[in-house]
């Protein structure tokens, strides 16, 4: 078994270099596919970072407390909310604190100077686990007797719903793109490797005639496929890593309002994904490509 494995590795290695032109064609096609897949993953990750930022903002809802609500009532409702499993945190902001917050926001500079007294409500800032639950918390708040009836909450249902929809669509589009890439890549890799195998059909014929088992014949091809896939993944990864930061920087300067950021931590996960995908693609492509010639 070990001897066979050693033989398979040796002949895969030799054959990779001996048929360099065909090997390079296979490397090139897998590299291109993996670059596309990598771009898809990076764009998906960037958007999910942006969405996470938005999601964090909109999954917070402020409940405005009417000025005449007694404090025990507010604390009581705060406890009720804190006990709700959908809620992660509740913070009571007094009228004074609300004013300080308002004044400290540079966007409110001019307005803050014109304020006389404190027209702001005290509020309960509620952070909700899932974006989809914000509507329910808003409904609950509106039923509470202590809420300011003129301006109960800052909930913007329409915006949240759109965010939810956008996030779902982006997720679906990314997944669909990956599936399409996967199918296209398997077909391309299979055909490239089938061409490589076609050049070596005589070798396979001799192998079979001297009594090689199907796996003995297939082994070196599958290992060669994995090698090809790994080389392609390494090239694709190198190109993506080199261009990741400059592209994000350029995007930030051109489209500043979208808070895209460079995330070096994602590179290790991208590397694992690409190397694994490359090895799998190469192995699968070789396995299918060699099948026609191997079957005795």
């Amino acid at each position, binding site marked *: 078994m070990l001897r066979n494995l050693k033989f398979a590795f040796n002949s895969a290695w030799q054959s990779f270099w001996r048929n360099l032109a065909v090997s390079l064609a296979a490397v090139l096609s897998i590299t291109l596919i993996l670059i596309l897949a990598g771009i898809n993953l990076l764009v998906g990750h960037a958007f999910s970072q942006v969405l996470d930022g938005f999601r964090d903002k909109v999954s917070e809802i402020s409940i405005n407390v009417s000025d005449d609500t007694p404090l025990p009532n507010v604390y009581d409702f705060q406890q009720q909310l804190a006990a709700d499993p959908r809620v992660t945190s509740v913070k009571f902001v007094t009228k004074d604190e609300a004013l300080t917050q308002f004044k400290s926001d540079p966007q409110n500079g001019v307005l803050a100077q014109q304020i006389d007294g404190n027209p702001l409500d005290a509020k309960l800032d509620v952070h909700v686990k899932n974006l989809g639950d914000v509507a329910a918390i808003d409904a609950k708040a509106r039923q509470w007797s202590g809420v300011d009836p003129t301006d109960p909450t800052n909930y913007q249902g329409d915006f949240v719903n759109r965010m939810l929809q956008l996030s779902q669509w982006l997720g679906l589009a990314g997944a669909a793109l990956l599936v399409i890439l996967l199918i296209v890549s398997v077909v391309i890799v299979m055909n490239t490797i089938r061409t490589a195998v076609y050049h070596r059909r*005589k*070798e396979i014929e001799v192998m*079979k*005639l*001297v009594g*090689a*088992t199907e796996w003995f014949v297939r082994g070196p091809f599958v290992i060669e496929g994995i090698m090809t896939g790994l080389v392609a993944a390494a090239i694709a990864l190198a190109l993506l890593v080199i261009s990741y930061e400059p592209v994000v920087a350029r995007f930030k300067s051109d489209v500043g309002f979208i808070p895209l950021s460079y995330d070096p931590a994602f590179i290790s996960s991208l590397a694992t994904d690409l190397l694994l995908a490359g090895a799998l693609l190469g192995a699968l492509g070789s396995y299918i490509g060699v099948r026609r010639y191997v079957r005795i």
Partner: protein
Amino acid sequence: MVLTPDFATRPVISFQHVFKTYPTGTEALRDVNLEVPEGDFLFLVGPSGAGKSTLVRLLIREEKPSKGKIFVDGIELGRMKRRRLPHYRRKVGLVFQDFKLLPNLTVYENVAFAMRVLGDPDHEIQARVAEALDTVSLSGKEHTYPANLSGGEQQRVAIARALVHAPRFIIADEPTGNLDPATAWEIMQLFLRINARGATVVMATHNREIVDLLRRRVIAIDAGQIARDDRSGRYHEDVAKPQVRVQ
């Protein structure tokens, strides 16, 4: 020592009412009955398209019979499971007209290939390959590539590969077809030596001189049928001296 085949014992190769029709409708073999005892040396002769190569392909299980049964060493080839086929092929040494050497492997690697497939250890491969190359007088050419060898030398490499794992059967399809008469005769000497060691040899050939000179068993195939089976035959039927008929 030359082993004399024992026709009274159970045959190691047996064709029983074998028919072969290809998917195109070509009827290659019709009701072939044949028995080969262990240690026999058998020539298959006949015009091109008579069915010799089909018979060889059936023997190495590249094809299955459309009807009838083929037994080799007690195994019925038509019913043999696909996964058993490699094990069967390891009992057989195959030699072809076009040598079927791997051009990117050296002489040594080509011969060793048949043993690598079996997963034999390196030290055993080295010893046996050296012995096989010595048998075919190619010692010293281990590191040469097939393209740098003459036709006769290439065929000797193919024979070394066929006998390196000490097979019980040697099946050869036109092994001298691409060789000049002197080289063909050298190659035949090798086959005779292999047969003398006990291997059963089945050889399809067009080489009239060799068949007539060696006077071994000759099976003439014509239009898919056995036309003649002579124990000590010639390429063409000898009308002056009637042969001993087996069947």
